[in-house]
């Protein structure tokens, strides 16, 4: 294993151990050793699959994502309200549109974060990604101008890539 992979490896280790401890609830020696074995098997399989890298173990960026998530929740709550109103209005006033959104995200992780954020926000779904352009289907044409996604783009880029672009 190359030295550069050690943080990702440790991140995955901590995440798997934490997940196992959180799921099990039985802390007897037998079950703990079984847990250790399953964590070891997972790590070996991940290493064999060659996925212990920036994407397979994004825990080094956990602070960035933790800062991004509350803002995303706020956006989701706001968008939810819009779509709930659209669902319940007697006179339906939706105006669906397909919009092309250009993203400044460079790494795949940042693009996935941005695309998933768009899809998670009710009223907008990422239909297709090609290079740095995303095809977004939106429930309201007027709310899906490319500028509306600029802040989400900027924030998800910072969450996944840090301030200075790809790490």
């Amino acid at each position, binding site marked *: 294993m190359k030295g550069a992979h050690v943080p990702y490896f440790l991140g995955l280790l901590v995440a798997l151990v934490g997940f196992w401890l959180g799921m099990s609830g039985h802390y007897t020696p037998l079950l703990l050793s079984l847990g250790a074995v399953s964590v070891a098997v997972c790590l070996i399989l991940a290493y064999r699959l060659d996925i212990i890298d920036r994407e397979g173990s994004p825990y080094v960026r956990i602070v960035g994502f933790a800062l991004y998530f509350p803002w995303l929740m706020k956006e989701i709550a706001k968008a939810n309200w819009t779509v*709930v109103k659209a669902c*319940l209005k007697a006179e339906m006033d939706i105006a669906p549109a397909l919009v092309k959104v250009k993203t400044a995200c460079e790494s795949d992780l940042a693009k996935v974060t941005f695309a998933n954020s768009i899809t998670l926000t009710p*009223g907008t779904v990422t239909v*297709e990604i090609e290079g740095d352009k995303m095809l977004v289907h939106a429930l309201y044409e007027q709310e899906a101008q490319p500028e509306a996604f600029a802040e989400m783009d900027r924030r998800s880029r910072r969450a996944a890539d840090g301030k200075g672009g790809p790490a």
Partner: protein
Amino acid sequence: MADFLATLATGWEVIRFPLGAALCLAGALLCVIGTVGMLRFPDFYTRLHAASITDTSGATLLLLGMAMMAPDWMVVSKLGAIFIFIYLTSPASSHAAANAAHTAGLQPLIGPVDTHDKEGQDS
């Protein structure tokens, strides 16, 4: 100070069940609203938007309510894991469905949708 904390803990024990139940009820209501939207919206892509209410706010409120009523921290950690996995997988599945429809050539309705139901006939 200790007294105050004890009062706070007792108060929390009293209100957490009504509060959790109310949150669960609100989440269930949002799921119903998502379903209503799913039935009312005109085409595949717009229906996907209605389904995402159920995925996000509905699921969040339900899990939050359940976490408040949880008997111990073990349950809370499991609900937290469910929350994380829902938020990681639901956009992926929505995107997969939308992308498959787009690739297959399904054209979305564009522009203002007029859905005045004619008398005795679905739009």
